[in-house]
């Protein structure tokens, strides 16, 4: 995984390894922005296979996830075939043939030649319980029946990664079927190495300052705590301003990058800016590590 620019730890590596060995779906939970989706991407890259993504949302139904008929094409064909003396049945069979089928992510993952792909079912908690039950069925035998076409079975089942932000609890049946992985906010060192890998130009000190600041921010009562994705974006924007270390101006110019809520921005501006700058000032990387670690223990 490291080769793909994903800074991993043993928990992630072991679980993903087992998932691919045992061919079990893996359910990944964790705060927003800790890199849940990234795991699937990296898995696909390291297996050198395709990543098929199904983004869940409220109201997502089986057809949207599985397949749809290409109506305009069907319509057109009916028009063209008007003069021909085909029977109704023959026409119907033709327009409900595989030429007119639009495969949606789930069917793509099942009806897939060559290497089994990685199927990422993103934010499963946003779909409703009926969809979850449907998904469970698909995940247990990897075959679908299309009334007009018959049953399609996966030659080799895909690798399945599900992510959830825990907006609702998933059914026990689904959880039972999956390996479980919780991804926490990274430690100071892990975050620092992520920043270094993703934002190569950043100075060691600036990277450490960003990591320490993030650790401190996550201790605050914010309505939307920043994830690792925000750390990377922040480091990138600081780099873009040409800074080698954090100062007040740089902080004030860029904190919109990692705070998305107006209340949070106000709270941070009022309470946190000064004390943060004070605590970061004059510290080197090791001192920053100590600071961040002490904070997260407290």
């Amino acid at each position, binding site marked *: *995984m*490291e*080769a*793909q620019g*994903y800074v991993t730890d*043993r928990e992630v*590596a*072991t*679980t993903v*390894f*087992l*998932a691919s*060995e*045992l061919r*079990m779906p*893996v*359910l990944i*939970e*964790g705060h927003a922005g800790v890199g849940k989706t990234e795991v699937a991407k*990296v*898995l696909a890259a*390291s297996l050198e296979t395709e990543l098929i993504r199904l983004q869940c949302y*409220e*109201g997502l*139904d089986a057809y949207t996830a599985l397949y*749809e*008929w290409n*109506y305009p094409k*069907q*319509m057109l064909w*009916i*028009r063209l075939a*008007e003069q021909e003396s085909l029977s*109704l049945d023959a*026409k*119907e069979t033709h*327009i409900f043939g595989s030429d007119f089928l639009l495969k949606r992510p789930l069917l793509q993952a099942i009806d897939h030649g060559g290497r089994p792909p990685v199927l990422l079912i993103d934010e499963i*908690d946003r779909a*409703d*319980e*009926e969809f979850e039950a449907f998904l469970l069925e698909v995940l247990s035998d990897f075959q679908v029946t299309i009334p007009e076409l018959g049953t399609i079975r996966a030659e080799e089942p895909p690798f399945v990664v599900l992510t959830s*932000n*825990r*907006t*609702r*609890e998933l059914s*026990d049946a689904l*959880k*039972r079927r*999956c*390996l*479980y*992985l*919780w991804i926490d906010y990274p430690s100071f060192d892990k975050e620092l190495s992520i920043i270094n890998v993703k934002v190569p130009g950043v100075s060691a000190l600036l990277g450490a300052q960003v990591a320490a600041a993030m650790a401190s921010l996550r201790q605050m*009562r*914010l*309505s*939307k*705590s920043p994830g690792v994705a925000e750390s990377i974006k922040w480091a990138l924007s600081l780099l873009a301003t040409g800074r080698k270390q954090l100062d007040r101006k740089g902080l004030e110019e860029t904190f919109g990058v990692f705070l998305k809520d107006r*209340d949070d921005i106000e709270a941070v501006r009022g309470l946190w800016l000064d004390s943060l700058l004070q605590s970061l000032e004059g510290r080197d990387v090791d001192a920053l590590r100590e600071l961040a670690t002490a904070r997260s223990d407290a």
Partner: protein
Amino acid sequence: MWTPSVSLQLPAPTPELAERVLAFCRLLRQEGLAATPAHSGVAVEALRRVDVGDREDFRLALRAVLTSGADELEHFDELFRLFWEGSLETSEALQRAEERESEAVAAEDASAQYSAMEALAHKDFADVQTEEDREALERALRTIARKLAARRSRRMRPAQHGGRVDVRRTIRRSLRFGGTALELARRRRDVRKTRLVLICDVSRSMDQYSRFLLQFVYAFQRGAGQVESFVFGTRLTRVTRYFRQPSIRSAVDQIEQEVLDWSGGTRIGASLAAFNRDYRAAVDRSTTVIVLSDGLDTGDLDVLDEQMALLSRRARRLIWLNPLLGSSPDHALGRGMRRALPYVDTFAPGHNLATLEALAKVL
């Protein structure tokens, strides 16, 4: 490569080890984790693929297979230490599990005179003593749940009139007429239940009501579609999964055993802050939030104010049920309640059946 420190030529786990894994799974089940017998087989399979000589690989492999939620991780690690690193016979957890089992047996024996419902009646909420009352109560609660629930979902169902054109079915029909769509097939939005979040105060000042209110929450969750339930005293706990059980008694019993801290004060503000922080996504503009509490906050009232503001901005509707409003109205408007009230859309007593039925009518 992303492979951890393993090779596939590892020896299979010995039968003795497999036995121990089975025993470990039993312990996890007794301790309330969701490890089923099927999981033990998978666990043994998983161990074939990692270096069982490496304690960390061993632990992580078992953990990936045998846990299924963030709330189980700490418990799992504790039991792992006890079972694999401590002495099995003296382990406290195992003793606890055994005690619990023998208690269960004893309770069954005595079931003629003793029922969990009567134990429930020890709290002096007089109205729910008889079976009849309880049933009436649950009926009323289901009505409330239904009223709250009338929101249309985005899912479509076939319809005769109205709604939108269903292209799929229209095309199919048009075949009969050589491709001319003479008849439009229609579909419309399905009526589906709204999202509900229930946050129930179970602190000492609510002692008289909490068992009753837990039933209230239970009925809600069973009556309505998407419901998330939480309880708090000094800290917030999500209890949705407890109410998935078919029996309300065991649900409430389990919550009492595992979740409640009856001793502490009430920190409503802090609990709502935890809710807003950790479960922010559980509330959207279609969510009705119901808080069940007497509003006697012993914590920082500024926090309460600020968190209520946050919550009311996000929710479609904020309902506060305060039992004091019915039983002793003079005390219902404490300092905490007064701070929370401006953000509340509906403020109602809900200390007995009649007031709950009235609430259903208002809704």
